[in-house]
Each structure stands twice: as C-alpha cells, then as structure tokens.
C-alpha cells in the first residue's frame, strides 16, 4: 500500500486527504483491486450491493478503531491473527444485526455476509493504516475507505440491475418492451461490468494526469 510509505500519513496527522484518499485515489476496489469477491458476487441488484457496502463499512470502521486502540499491546508475530479475530467479532455482530433488520436481504446475501471476514480491504486497512495510527485518523480512514468500497459496489449494482433487469431499486425504468440483458445478472456479467468500470477509472485517471502535465 502506498499509504503507509507516505511520511505524511505515517505521522499522526489528520487531514481531509485521509478521508478523500479512500474514496478515489486509494479506492480499495478500483485502484487496489482488493475485496473483489463480494463486489462481484452480490452486486446483482442495487439493494444487495448497498446492504453489503453498509455492512462492510460498519466492520471496517469498528475494526479500524479497535485495532488502533490495541496497537501498542499486540506483539508483531501474532498481529494478523489478532486482527482477524477482531474483524470476525464485528462480522458476527453485523451478521446478527442484519438478520434482525431485514431477513430478506440477509437470505439474499447468504454466505457472503460471514465472508466479509476475508475481505482483504479490511485486513489491509488494519495492517497498513490502523496498526500505525491513533484512534481518530483510523476512524476517518475507515469511513473514507468504507465509502469508497460502498461507492464501487453501488456502481456495480446499479449497472447490473439497470441492464440486467431493467429496474433500479426494483422500480422499472424502461417500458414493457424492454428485453432484460440477462447475462448482466449472471456471474459472467459481473466480470464484464467490473472490467468495464476499471477501464473507465483508468481512463479518467489518465485524463487527469495529462491535464496536470500540460
């Protein structure tokens, strides 16, 4: 991760960049290609994508905070195991909370809710940011990266639901003559949409680079 090599973020400084980096410049999905499994698997509708984004954001923020609080007491050799146990605890909380709030969404997401544990984004942030920074920057970083992740999975969900079912949040967008592009909600479509979105992100970043250079 480039974040921890950067001297500005290695010191306990808190700036707007800590927050904004997670959303675009260090977007976990589009730039670092982390946490792809849920992004591909549950983005077949907007509501699934948003719930997954929210749950991940909750776990990310909470685990970032706890990891940052205990960072001085955790010995180096067992830090990964410790982080994983902390993350697993919050995922269990999120899983039970989701079951209580909306059983329907919980059943639609299925085994992918407990699988938040192995979302590399969360362990990545714990290892590269929260274990080196105090509470407040870690909290801000968690919110920023969480929003970045939610944004990415929401984009996927929106494209796939609009093209694959002709609806947005289950509201029909096109007339009755619309023929749904079924491949978009199938597994293959997930790969295609993510590939296409990555192209768009690379293209936008290249444009920015050129404009700044001129």
């Amino acid at each position: 991760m480039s974040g921890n090599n950067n001297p500005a973020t290695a010191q306990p400084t808190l700036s707007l960049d800590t927050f904004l980096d997670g959303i675009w410049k260090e977007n976990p999905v589009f730039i670092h290609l982390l946490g792809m499994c849920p992004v591909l698997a549950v983005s077949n509708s907007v509501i699934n994508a948003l719930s997954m984004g929210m749950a991940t954001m909750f776990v990310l923020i909470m685990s970032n905070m706890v990891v940052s609080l205990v960072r001085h007491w955790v010995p180096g050799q067992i830090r990964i195991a410790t982080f994983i146990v902390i993350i697993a605890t919050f995922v269990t909380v999120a899983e039970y909370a989701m079951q209580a709030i909306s059983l329907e969404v919980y059943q639609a997401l299925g085994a992918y809710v407990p699988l938040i544990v192995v979302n590399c984004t969360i362990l990545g942030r714990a290892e590269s940011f929260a274990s080196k920074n105090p509470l407040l920057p870690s909290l801000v970083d968690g919110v920023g990266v969480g929003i970045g992740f939610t944004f990415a999975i929401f984009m996927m969900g929106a494209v796939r639901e609009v093209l694959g079912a002709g609806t947005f949040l289950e509201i029909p967008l096109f007339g009755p003559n619309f023929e749904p592009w079924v491949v978009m909600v199938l597994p293959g479509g997930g790969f295609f949409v993510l590939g296409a979105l990555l192209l768009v992100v690379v293209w936008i970043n290249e444009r920015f680079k050129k404009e700044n250079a001129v």
Partner: protein
Amino acid sequence: MNDVSLWAVFLNSTIINNFVLSLFLGICPFLGISGKLDTSIRMSGAVIFVMLVSSSAAFGIHTLLVALDARYLELIAFIAVIASTVQLVEMIIKKTSPALFRSLGIYLPLITTNCAILGVALFQTLRAYSFLQSVVFALGAGLGFTIAMALMAGLREELELADVPNLVKGAGLTLMLAGVLSLGFMGFGGLGG
C-alpha cells in the same frame, strides 16, 4: 443431513458451481498470481491442502459448537483454524522449497484471507453435509480452483505476446477473460443434476 451423492457433490463444486468463476470466491489470488502457469499450479496445491484440513476441522467445530449451543462463535473458530493451517503450510514450504516460497510472496499468508477456503467451511455448514461429503466438497472446490487458475494462467501467458491497448492492460483484460471463462462454465449447468 443432506443425502446428495458424493459424486454429485464433487461434480457440483468442481465445474458446475466453480468456486472462482461462478461463486466469485478466491478472486484475489486468481487475479494476482495467475501470471505464470507453474506458480499458479503450486499455489493451488497449497490451497487444496489448506481446504482439506480446514474443512475437516470446520466439521468438527460445527458439531462441537452446536452441542454447546454456541453457534455465534463459529465464524471466529473457523477463521482461527484456517489461519493456523496457513501458518503451518507456510513453514513447510519455507523449509522444503525456498524458491517457491519467494515466488508466492505475499500471497501465501493471504491464503488466510482467501475467501474460497472460508467459503468451503461456510457452505458445507449451510448445506448440512456429512463428514465424507464435506471432505469431497473441499477436494472438489480445490480442484475447481486449480482448473480456473490453470486456465487463466495459460491464457495470460499467451497474452504476454499479444498487442493490446495500454488502457486495457492488467486487471481490466484479466476480468474480461474471466467473464468469458465464466460464460463457458455456465455450459456445465445441467450436468449431474
């Protein structure tokens, strides 16, 4: 108890619902180290081993925790077992083949966060497989992972020689290829019931 035949479980986890291409589990190593055929096959070997161990352990843990009425500990227990198995594999590989250890690099400890392995443990619990079914399921899932990795690595080795636009190089192209592979695997849909 689930009474699906062992062969159906195997076939289902290997090709019909391939872990990588239709359940989207284990995407990180799939995109990350599928550059070379040799490395990806050895990596898959490590994954199969970890899957078999953690699947058998997960079956025991599940039985124990149901008996103790403490299923909320399941996730934490699963991940702890997987993490320690990965540590074990890491030590074995480091001792027996330092070259392989170097080429796998960061992706070896990352097997811990390989969704495919936790996925095996979770799905076998969800579908109430018996012990034998669980082991076959883990083996099938591991083989499915190997097939996907090998296919992708073969394609990417060829792509090295192809002339593609700069924008598409890297992850974008890999994802498009994965999409095509995934469509191909859908053809196995009706197999085995």
